[in-house]
């Protein structure tokens, strides 16, 4: 019998016992947070540095801006200094002049090299000053930018100033040549210089046209100043000047002609006086025959004027016929007459009275002595006092005898006014000026050439605008102004150097006879 057998069922396990890895932490970000924080910290530090940098740069920009304001003013001073240095450059040392044989070659005056060279040292000095000034600017780029702008500006200024200086010099040279040529009668050469100046762009067409007109004017002025008044009138008539210019020039020619005659007349009179003084001494010798005597031949060959010779011939004939007693009387002053004449000195009307007094018994010798000696202290006093009032003495005024008396009278009025007002200090000078000005102006109008700018002269002499000052004129002054002194009697005749006879028609005017 077969017994059933039992077999144990040992099933192998379905599970291995191994567990799958799930959420082990390997995929979890556990460490990067720390490093993200570190990176953030680094970024924060970097950004802080950036902010600090920005603050620093902003502050630096403000500082630089402030510094640039300060040093820009100094830079301008440096520029001015450079311009002043250019002003001191002697152009003639570095610039060719028209007498250079190569001067006119080409289309341009060869000046650019000269003025550029003259700038080199000036610019180098300016650059050094600018570099020194730029030191306080902290930002290198800002500093360099400022330096560049200043140097460009300086170079431009120096160039312009130099160019203008050279052009001005050249222009003045050419126009001066033109004026000289025209004044010397060579109007063709004068116009050539104007053409050259215009060709090289130193002057424009409008100025060139004006300068050509000036050439004509200078030509005419040159003529009449040499005494060629008729030629000057002819040239003026033939010129292309406009009517206004012609009228002005015509007046100038007339005035110059009158002045030349007046001056000639004054010169003759002074010469007559000087010779007459010597003749008077000789005339006195008639009381002593042993001494040299005045003769008709001496008068004849003398340099006296025609009229003075006639007067001296008459006087000598009269004295030749005088007896010894009459001669003694003639050469002896009568006391009351002498007293009179000294009163006249005080009145300042001496010259007008001298001839009259001689007729009344004043010795001609005494009259001459008074003229030559007694008035001298007045002249000196006058000069000193005028210097005190104006800081300037009108010494030229003493060429005309009468004007000196006007001054003397002015001074007496001034002194009287000081006493009347009990003035002191500056007030004294103020009174003096207000009183003297009308006399001074009147005198200048009388003795100065007609083309003289009298207003300007007064302005320079008195240091103030004459139009702005209206002095209160004292009564005496008005009287003096209304009665214009006549140097000659109306109808009086004179001869000029050419032998032409002239008749005085009053108001300082002469007419040909």
């Amino acid at each position, binding site marked *: 019998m077969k017994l059933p057998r039992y*077999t144990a*069922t040992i*099933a*192998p*396990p*379905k*599970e*291995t016992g*191994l*567990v*799958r*890895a799930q959420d*082990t932490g*390997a*995929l979890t*970000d556990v*460490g*990067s947070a*720390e*490093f*993200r*924080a*570190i*990176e*953030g*910290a*680094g*970024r*924060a*530090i*970097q*950004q*802080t*540095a*950036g902010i*600090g*940098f920005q603050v*620093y*740069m902003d502050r630096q920009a403000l500082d630089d801006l402030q510094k640039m304001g300060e040093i820009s003013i100094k830079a301008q001073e440096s520029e001015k200094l450079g311009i002043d240095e250019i002003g001191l450059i002697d152009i003639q040392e570095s610039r060719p002049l028209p007498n250079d044989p190569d001067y006119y070659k080409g289309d341009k005056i060869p000046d650019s090299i000269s003025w550029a060279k003259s700038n080199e040292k000036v610019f180098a000095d300016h650059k050094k000053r600018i570099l020194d000034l730029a030191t306080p600017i*902290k*930002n*290198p780029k800002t500093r360099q930018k400022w330096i560049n702008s200043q140097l460009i500006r300086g170079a431009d200024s120096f160039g312009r100033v130099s160019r203008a200086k050279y052009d001005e010099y050249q222009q003045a040279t050419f126009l001066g040549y033109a004026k000289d040529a025209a004044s010397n009668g060579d109007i063709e050469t004068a116009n050539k210089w104007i053409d050259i100046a215009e060709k090289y762009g130193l002057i424009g067409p409008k100025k060139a046209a004006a300068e050509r007109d000036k050439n004509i004017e200078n030509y005419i002025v040159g003529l009449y100043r040499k005494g060629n008044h008729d030629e000057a009138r002819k040239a003026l008539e033939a010129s292309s000047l406009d009517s206004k210019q012609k009228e002005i020039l015509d007046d100038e020619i007339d005035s110059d002609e009158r002045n030349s005659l007046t001056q000639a007349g004054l010169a003759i009179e002074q010469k007559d006086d000087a010779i007459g003084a010597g003749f008077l001494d000789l005339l006195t010798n008639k009381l002593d025959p042993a001494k040299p005597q005045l003769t008709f031949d001496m008068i004849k060959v003398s340099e006296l004027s025609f009229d003075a010779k006639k007067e001296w011939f008459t006087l000598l004939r009269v004295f030749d016929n005088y007896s010894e007693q009459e001669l003694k009387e003639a050469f002896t002053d009568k006391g009351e007459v002498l007293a009179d004449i000294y009163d006249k000195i005080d009145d300042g009307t001496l010259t007008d009275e001298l001839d009259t007094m001689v007729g009344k018994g004043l010795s001609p010798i005494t009259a001459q002595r008074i003229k030559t000696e007694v008035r001298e202290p007045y002249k000196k006093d006058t000069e000193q006092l005028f210097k005190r009032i104006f800081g300037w003495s009108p010494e030229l005024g003493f060429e005309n005898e009468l004007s000196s008396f006007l001054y003397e009278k002015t001074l007496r009025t001034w002194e009287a006014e000081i006493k009347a007002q009990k003035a002191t200090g500056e007030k004294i000078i103020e009174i003096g000026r207000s009183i003297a000005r009308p006399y001074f102006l009147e005198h200048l109008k009388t003795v100065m050439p007609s083309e003289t700018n009298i207003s300007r002269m007064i302005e320079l002499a008195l240091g103030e605008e004459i139009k702005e000052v209206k002095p209160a004129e004292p009564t005496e002054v008005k009287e003096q102004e209304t009665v214009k002194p006549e140097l000659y009697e109306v109808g009086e005749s004179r001869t000029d150097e050419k032998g032409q006879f002239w008749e005085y028609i009053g108001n300082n005017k002469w007419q040909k006879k």
Partner: protein
Amino acid sequence: MTTAIFIMAIVGTGVQAYGQYQQSKQAQAQAKAQAAWNLYNSKVAKRQAEAEQRAAAFESKQHKRKAEALLAKQRALVGASGVEMEGSPLLVAEDTAAQLAKEAVNIRLTGQRRVQAYRSQSILDISRASAATSRAAGYGRAAVIGAGSTLLQGGAQAGYLGYQMGVIE
């Protein structure tokens, strides 16, 4: 003051670069760890598949033994009753055998499917490990490049600062 700002700019750059570098290195380490764990899981799945295969084979073998025992018992009962193994008894035996065979096939197929599932899991885990390894390499390169870029940029900026402030010429 200018020197302090300049130093801060340099230090800040250095710290930032260090942070970036360490972050990338950290990510690299994590990726490497992930790859290792994925490989571990793939081995677990593989072991599970082998265990399932052995279990399925045993189950199939057990089923075969049970089937043979049942059929032997049926034949013994029929023989003891004196009934010939023909007609209905034979049909019952044949039907039993067919049912047992179906059951055996079913047991084998079920076991094979479970094994296949674990094998697939193992393959997927290997793929994940491979991807993580690649990521780890990328993080390694990123650490160097990122930190280098930061150093370059920060260095240039610090240089600009220093030059503007006159710390360096």
